[in-house]
C-alpha cells in the first residue's frame, strides 16, 4: 500500500510534476422553498409544477430572501469553522440562457455570506499521519438554474423550471489539494459535514452536490501554473478521474513545449476525458452588480446564536469522543464518516453497551451483514436497542461470541429480539461443570493417543480438545470453563 504521506507526483517525460487542485462545490440547500420564492423544491416532480411567478421571471416580480436558506448556509459556515459575514449582499450575474428566465443569476460575488474556513481530512483513515487541513476560501449563496430537455421535440428544446431558483451554496476551496486522493477525501468529508449539519443531502446522483474542478500542474516548488476548470462533475470518482486526466493532459502539453490555456472544460464520463467548452477569450462578461431588488443581508446576534445552538456534534468532535471511549482510531473514523451510522451508533451506546465491544461488533458484524443484504444502516432490520440486547448477552456470558453470530443472523431474518431467540432456541451458554466434565472425560478417553502426545509436550493439541468439547456441547459451553476444566484434567 502506498504511503499516504509521501507527496503525490506524476512522472512525465522530463521529470516529476506536482498537481494543484481547488474545488468549487455547488451544494443544494435543504429547504422546503426556493431561495427567493415560495415554490417547492422536491426532486423528481413533473416538469414546471414547482414554479412561482418569481421563478418564471414574470414582469414586475421581485425576489424575497428565504431566511431558512440563509440559516442553512450560515450553519454550514459555522460547521467549517468559517468566518460568518454579518453583512453580505446579493449580486446579479448577467447572461442569457433559456434555463435562466431572469437573464441573470442572483449570486454573491463581492460580499459573500461566509468567509475563510477549514476542512480537516485524512487521506488514509487508518493513518493519522495523513491528516491535512484544506482551506475554504468562501461560501456564497446563489440561485440554481432550470433544466433544458433536448429530447422532447425534433427541432426545439423544452425548459423545465422546477430547479430554477433553488438555493445553492457554492463552497470554494483554496488551491490546497495536491492529489486525487486528497480531493476525494475533501469531498467525502465536506459531504459528511453537510449531511451532519443537514444543510444539503449530498446526493450527487440527483445533482444536489456537484463540483467544478480546478486543476493546474507545476514542477515541485515552482509558482502555480495556469489552471483549467472542469464544470459540473457529479461524483467523487469522476472528480478524481478529471484530476488525473487533466494533470496528464496538461503535462503533455507543457512537455511538448506548449502552454496550458485558461479555459472551461467539460468531463465526458463515457470517454473518460475532458474537452474544451470555452476559452478565456470567449468567456462571458457577466456584468456583476449589486441586485437593486434586495437589501444587504444583515445578521444579528440572536440569529447567529440560534444557528450555532442548532449545530449537531460534528464528525471530528464525535470521532475524538469515540477515541476517548477506547475505540480504535480506525473504528472511530469509520463510525463517524456517515451521519446515519454515527446516529445509529450513538443510539446503541445510549443503551449502556461497552463502547469498544460495540464498535468492534458494528464494524465487523453489522457492516458485513448490511453489505451482504445491500441495505443502508437506516434500513437495517435490527434496531440499536435489539443490537444492544445482543451485545449484553455476550458481555454477561449468557451466550458465547460464536453463538452471538448465529443469533444475529436469526435477528436479521426474523426481526425478533436477541433474548427471545436465545431462549426459544435454547442457545444459552452453559457453565455447568458436571455436563462439561462428562464430555471432557468421554473425549479424553476416546483420544488416549493424543492425550499421550499432549502430555509428552505437544501443547498445540490443547486447541483440538477445546474444539471437540465445544462441538460436543453444541457451542453452548462457556469457553472459559471448558479451558479451565481441560487444563485441570490434562494436568
Amino acid at each position, binding site marked *: 500500500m502506498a504511503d499516504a504521506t509521501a507527496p503525490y507526483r506524476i512522472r512525465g517525460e522530463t521529470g516529476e510534476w506536482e498537481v494543484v487542485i481547488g474545488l468549487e462545490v455547488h451544494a443544494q440547500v435543504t429547504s422546503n422553498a426556493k431561495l427567493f420564492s415560495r415554490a417547492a423544491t422536491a426532486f423528481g416532480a413533473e416538469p414546471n409544477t414547482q414554479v412561482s411567478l418569481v421563478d418564471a*421571471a414574470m414582469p*414586475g416580480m421581485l425576489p424575497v430572501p428565504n431566511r431558512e436558506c440563509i440559516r442553512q448556509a450560515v450553519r454550514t459556515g459555522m460547521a467549517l469553522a468559517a468566518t460568518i459575514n454579518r453583512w453580505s449582499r446579493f449580486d446579479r450575474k448577467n447572461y442569457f440562457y433559456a434555463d435562466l428566465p431572469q437573464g441573470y443569476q442572483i449570486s454573491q460575488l463581492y460580499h459573500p455570506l461566509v468567509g475563510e474556513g477549514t476542512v480537516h481530512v485524512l487521506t488514509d483513515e487508518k493513518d493519522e499521519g495523513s491528516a491535512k487541513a484544506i482551506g475554504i476560501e468562501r461560501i456564497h449563496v446563489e440561485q440554481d438554474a432550470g433544466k433544458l430537455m433536448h429530447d422532447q421535440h425534433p427541432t426545439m428544446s423544452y425548459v423545465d423550471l422546477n430547479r430554477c431558483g433553488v438555493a445553492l451554496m457554492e463552497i470554494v476551496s483554496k488551491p490546497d489539494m495536491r492529489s486525487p486522493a486528497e480531493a476525494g477525501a475533501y469531498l467525502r468529508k465536506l459531504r459528511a459535514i453537510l449531511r451532519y449539519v443537514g444543510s444539503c443531502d449530498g446526493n450527487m446522483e440527483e445533482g444536489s452536490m456537484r463540483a467544478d474542478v480546478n486543476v493546474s500542474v507545476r514542477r515541485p516548488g515552482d509558482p502555480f501554473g495556469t489552471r483549467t476548470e472542469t464544470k459540473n462533475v457529479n461524483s467523487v470518482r469522476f472528480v478524481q478521474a478529471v484530476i488525473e486526466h487533466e494533470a496528464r493532459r496538461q503535462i503533455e502539453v507543457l512537455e511538448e513545449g506548449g502552454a496550458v490555456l485558461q479555459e472551461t472544460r467539460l468531463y465526458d464520463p463515457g470517454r473518460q476525458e475532458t474537452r474544451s467548452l470555452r476559452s478565456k477569450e470567449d468567456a462571458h462578461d457577466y456584468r456583476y452588480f449589486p441586485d437593486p431588488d434586495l437589501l444587504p443581508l444583515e445578521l444579528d446576534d440572536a440569529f447567529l446564536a440560534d444557528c450555532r445552538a442548532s449545530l449537531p456534534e460534528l464528525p471530528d468532535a464525535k470521532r475524538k469522543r469515540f477515541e476517548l471511549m477506547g475505540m480504535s482510531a480506525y473504528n472511530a473514523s469509520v463510525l463517524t464518516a456517515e451521519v446515519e451510522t454515527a446516529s445509529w451508533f450513538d443510539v446503541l451506546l445510549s443503551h449502556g453497551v461497552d463502547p469498544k465491544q460495540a464498535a468492534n461488533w458494528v464494524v465487523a458484524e453489522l457492516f458485513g451483514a448490511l453489505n451482504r443484504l445491500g441495505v443502508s444502516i437506516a434500513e437495517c432490520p435490527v434496531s440499536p436497542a435489539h443490537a444492544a440486547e445482543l451485545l449484553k448477552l455476550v458481555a454477561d456470558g449468557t451466550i458465547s461470541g460464536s453463538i452471538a453470530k448465529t443469533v444475529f443472523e436469526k435477528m436479521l431474518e426474523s426481526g425478533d429480539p436477541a433474548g427471545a431467540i436465545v431462549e426459544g432456541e435454547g442457545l444459552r451458554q452453559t457453565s455447568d461443570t458436571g455436563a462439561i466434565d462428562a464430555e471432557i472425560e468421554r473425549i479424553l478417553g476416546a483420544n488416549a493417543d493424543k492425550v499421550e502426545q499432549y502430555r509428552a509436550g505437544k501443547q498445540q493439541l490443547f486447541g483440538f480438545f477445546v474444539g471437540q468439547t465445544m462441538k460436543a456441547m453444541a457451542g453452548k459451553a462457556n469457553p472459559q470453563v471448558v479451558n479451565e476444566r481441560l487444563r485441570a484434567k490434562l494436568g
Partner: protein
Amino acid sequence: MTELTRRTITELRDGFRSGDFSAREIAEQFNAAVAGARALNAYTVETPNDALAAADTADAARVSGDLQPLSGIPLGIKDLFATAGVDTTAGSNILAGFKPPYESTVSGNLRRAGAGMLGKLNMDEFAMGSSNETSAYGPVLSPWKRNDGGNAALTPGGSSGGSAAAVAAGLAPGVTGTDTGGSIRQPAAFTGISGIKPTYGRCSRWGIVAFASSLDQAGPMARTVRDCAILLEAMAGFDPKDSTSLDLAVPRWEAGLSSDLKGKRVGIPTEYRIKGVPDEINALWDQGIEWLRDAGAEPVEISLPHTKYALPTYYIIAPAEASSNLARYDGVRYGRREAGEGGLEGMYSATRAAGFGAEVKRRIMIGTYVLSAGFYDAYFNKAQRVRALIKQDFRAAFEQCDLILTPTAPSAAFGLGEKLADPIAMYLNDVFAVPASLAGLPAMSVPGGLDDLGLPLGLQIIGRELDEQGVLIAGLAIEERAGFSARPEKWW
C-alpha cells in the same frame, strides 16, 4: 346633467357620499370622456365595464354602509402596473398582448380601497422617456396648446404622459404614475396638475414592470394636493413581497393636511439656478418662495454641491439596472417572440430587435457598457459613490431647512418631435427631478402658473425621507396661493 369629469376626487367622494350623484353616474361620465378623447392617445386599453362594476359595488356599499375610502372613484392606471387579465405592456411591443395573471400590489390596494379602473394609460416604453414619444402606441398628445395661434402638438411629458394627459383633460379624476427620474413630476408640471413621488419604499414595487429598481417608485397624480394625499394613502403600505418596501404604518396624510408653514425653513438650492433656464421659470420660483413665506415659512439659501453630477449619475445607474431588468424579455415565456435564425441566440436577437424601441435599446446598450468588465469601476461604481454624495448633500441641507423648493422642469411642455433627435436635450428635462430620485426622497410637483405661451409651469417641493406630510402641506400652501385654475380648452 351635472358635469362630473371636471371635479376633484374630494368633490366626487363627498358628493357621492352625500347622495348628490351616484357612483354609476361618475363612472359613466368618465367612460364617455375616455371614449371621446381617443385623439389624445392617453389610454392604451379602456376598461369601462371594470369602472361600472366598481361603481355598482360602491352604490350598493353606500346603501349598506360598507363604504371604502375610494368607493365611487374611477381611476386610470399607468400601463406599467400589472392588472390581472388586462393587457399590461409597459408601452412596449415586446409585451404585446401580455395579460398578467396577477395584480400589482399598488393597483390591488386601490381596488381594495373601492376604486374602479377606467383603463390603462399610455407611457414611454418601459418608462424610458420624458415626452411619451417612445411608446409603442405612439405619443400621447397634451390637451394643452400654445396660445400663439399655432396648432403645434405638444408633449404631456413623460414617462407618465398618458396619466398626466388623462387628468388634465378630465379623462380620470386621478391616476397612478411611476417616477424613476421625474416621470411623475415632469408630466404633472407640463399639464398643470399635481403629482407626488413618495419616499422610496413607501409604495410596493411588486407587480410594477421594473425599469430601474433602486429608483422606481409609484405615486399618484391628480388635480389637487388633497386628491394626491387621498390616493397616496390608499396606494402606500408595507408589502412583504418587496424586500425594499418600508415596514411602516401609512400616515393619515389627508387628515394631516394644512397649509400652515409657521416655523418651517424652506431651502432654496443655489445650484438649481442653471444657465439657460427661461426667466419665466425662475420668476415662478421666486414667486413660490414668496408664497411659502406668506404661509409662514422662512426661506434659506442652501447648497447641494453635487447637483451637477446628478444627471450623469442617473444616466449610468438607471440604464445599468434597466439593462439587467429587461433581460427577461427574451421571447421564451411571454410577450412577443420572433423565431429568427440560428437557434436560441437567433431567437433572442430577433425578438429583442423587433420588440424594443430605439430609446430602450439605447439604454440597454449604455447599461451594458457601464457594467462591462474594465468599465465597471470607472462608471457604475463611481456613479454609486456619487449617488452617496448626493444623498449626503440632502442630509446636510436638511440640517438647515425642513423643505426644499425648486422648479420642477427647466421648461414648459415642448412640441412633439422637437427633442426626439437629441437624447441629451431630452435627458436635461429631468435635471431638477433626478437628484431627489437618487436620494430616494419624497418630492412633489404642483402647478404654479402659466408661461407667456399659456402653458403650465410647476414648482417642486422636496422633503426629508418619510416627510410626505411636510411636502403635501407646502404643496397645499402653494396651491392655495397660486390659485391655479387654468384648464386646456377642449379641442379633441
